[in-house]
């Protein structure tokens, strides 16, 4: 058993950490989240140039690994810096699907451009009213001439308006299909919005969007398996990201306890706050453990149980860390100008992607009791 990062992983971690520290300060991020695009094309280009997209792709397609630990190392550091660049949507979800072994059509050829930072992706899967149920697919592809016509709606699609290509799940003549829909396609309407945690998302609806045979990335069982893997990787990435955000909240709070003076002493001298701080640190260690465990099981047949365990526990602990950090900061903790406030928001809102604590706790029960 060895819990140390390999040299390659340490280098990757340091590189991302340094980049985030140097290029992603509060003002920069604040401008980005208030901008129309919702991300910085310049920073995204630099991240791609550093090889970050490649880092989470398998070697088969020219990536650098794409294992659980690769994802964890990158996401943890992006989480520390509450980076809102479209990494999850484009690299983890989108590029992961383009890189699937059984992918067909024109999709795989997009990969080079995606890896180079020139092409953004989004996965449009969850539907209005389906809440966190990934099995609901009412969007439909019907035969139309040489190709298909796509009809349906997708809800809270991260990067949905930014993406150059949206990967849409739909029921087709051959079962589940993942279809590529380019930005601005006729018949696709986009209602763009920002999220509380600073990301850009959209409601998408499709009304007779033309989909060529060549646009079909995956079909049938291959599409189901690939979608399952994509959601698993996305879920795991969020767990790792939240761990990084928790550590950032912890460091900020610890620093505050050491420097903020009241009644003539640093407030960290008060036992009431010391014990709260200890409990926060303890839970963060637990979060790290469950994320490590999920990383090690990402390619195994116990994947889903461990993912639900990780999502449920990091969700529970993330909320606790967010609330405790804000509480210990006092009034300043509830102001926009404090970085920690945005970390706290990310920690709380991260629970709303791919199933929250309750959803995954229930799912974990089923998977664990069946084992």
């Amino acid at each position, binding site marked *: *058993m060895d819990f140390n990062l390999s040299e390659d992983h340490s280098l990757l971690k340091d590189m991302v950490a340094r980049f985030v520290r140097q290029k992603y300060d509060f003002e920069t991020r604040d401008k980005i989240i208030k901008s129309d695009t919702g991300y910085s094309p310049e920073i995204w280009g630099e991240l791609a140039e550093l090889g970050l997209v490649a880092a989470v792709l398998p070697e088969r397609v020219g990536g650098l690994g794409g294992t659980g630990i690769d994802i964890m190392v990158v996401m943890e550091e992006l989480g520390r810096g509450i980076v809102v660049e479209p990494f999850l949507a484009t690299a983890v979800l989108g590029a992961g699907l383009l890189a699937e072994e059984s992918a067909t059509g024109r999709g795989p050829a997009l990969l080079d451009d995606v890896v180079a930072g020139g092409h953004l992706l989004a996965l449009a899967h969850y539907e209005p009213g389906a809440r966190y149920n990934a099995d609901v697919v009412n969007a439909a592809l019907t035969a139309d001439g040489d190709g298909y016509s796509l009809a349906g709606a997708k809800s809270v699609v991260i990067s949905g308006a930014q993406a150059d290509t949206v990967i849409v799940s739909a029921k087709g003549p051959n079962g589940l299909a993942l279809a590529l829909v380019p930005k601005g396609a006729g018949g696709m309407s986009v209602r763009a919005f920002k999220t509380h945690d600073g990301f850009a998302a959209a409601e998408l609806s499709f009304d007779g969007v033309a989909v060529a045979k060549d646009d079909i990335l995956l079909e049938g069982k291959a599409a189901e398996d690939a979608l399952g893997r994509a959601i698993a990787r996305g879920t795991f990435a969020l767990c790792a990201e939240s761990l990084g955000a928790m550590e950032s909240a912890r460091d900020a709070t610890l620093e505050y306890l050491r420097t903020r003076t009241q009644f003539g002493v640093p407030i960290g001298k008060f036992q009431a706050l010391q014990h709260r701080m200890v409990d926060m640190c303890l839970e963060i260690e637990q979060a790290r453990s*469950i994320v*490590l465990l999920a990383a090690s099981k990402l390619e195994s047949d116990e994947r889903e149980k461990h993912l639900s365990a990780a999502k449920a526990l990091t969700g529970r602990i993330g909320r606790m860390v967010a609330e405790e950090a804000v509480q210990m900061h006092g009034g300043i903790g509830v102001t926009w100008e404090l970085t920690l406030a945005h970390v706290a928001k990310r920690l709380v809102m991260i629970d709303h992607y791919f199933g929250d604590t309750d959803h995954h*706790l229930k799912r974990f029960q089923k998977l664990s*009791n069946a084992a």
Partner: protein
Amino acid sequence: MRLDYTDEDKAFREEVRSFLAEKLPSHISKAVKAGRMPAREDYITWQRILNEKGWAVHSWPKEHGGSGFTPFQKHIFEEECVKAGAPELPPFGLNMLGPVLIAFGSEEQKAHYLPRILNCDDWWCQGYSEPGAGSDLASLKTKAVRDGDHYIVNGQKTWTTMGQYADWIFCLVRTSSAGKPQEGISFLLIDMDTPGVEMRPIITIEGGHEVNEVFFQDVKVPVENLVGEENKGWTYAKYLLQHERVGIAGVAAAKEGLKKLKRIAAETDAGDGSTLIEDPAFATRIANVELDLMAMELTNLRVLAQAQAGGAPGAESSMLKIKGSVIRQEISDLLRRAVGPYALPFMPELELPGANEEPIGPDGANAFAGHYFNRRKYSIYGGSNEIQRNIISKMILGL
């Protein structure tokens, strides 16, 4: 990064398993699995079997009779012991006094006491806490006054676990009142048969007898029974407490408890034809503690990996103590709830060795409420969880 055991560790686990299958007496494992306290002679029997194999203690260097296990091997060994229903050996001689003697004792003390500890020829108990010195241990008042070749000891110790079985007690006593309270403490070994030593049972909340009070009235203790230097006892005591907290997470025991809980919940009718494990409220509580335990098992392994790499057990063990105690208490709460009204009968006689009276309600149910009350001790002993938080705050967070 590699989260699985090495082939050597896996082979070691097999070795431990077959050893336990062959050597652990079934009457002992049966009692342990039923949650009963084994009899004194059962502990001694098991310790001697282990000692013959060289596996009685892991915290000692090999030249003194330690097993030489790596931290991971120790963990595997303990896990298999719990699974097999082996009694947890009393730690007082093996894991508390032993390391102190090895580090600070004289050559004569080591030569005399260590082999006797290993073979359980002497049963030791711990004389630390006093009625007025609990979390604030350094305020202890039991006095030892030098009188020629002897110390004369007067005072009282309390919470003396398994003291009713003990032949000897190691005590912290006050030999000076000058300076800070920590500076006047000495570490003394006292024969329980010495005139003036008196033991009285403390009956704990559930009705059991694990702990005692020990009274000392003009007890004559030879000066050669002093460990290390006079007035340096606090240093030795802190050293001991560090060893005491190792393994305190109780991961293996918690895992067995959870397994039992899930089995009972799956077998228990919720009263409406469904089983308890299908009850959303109950199942949610099980799932939550299961998550905490999954994470803690890995946290424990992470701490072990640090130890394996040569790190000393530090304040991290305080983290494990807090989390481990709370998880085990939660499991004991759920076990009590799982059996519903059959948690109520108070029939401690059913838990005594050799009891054969028919229980009321499902098998094992009789013990659960008692265990629940007894397990409140987990977050109190070995330095209360609040004291552990103080330690972490100071040692890790630097607050």
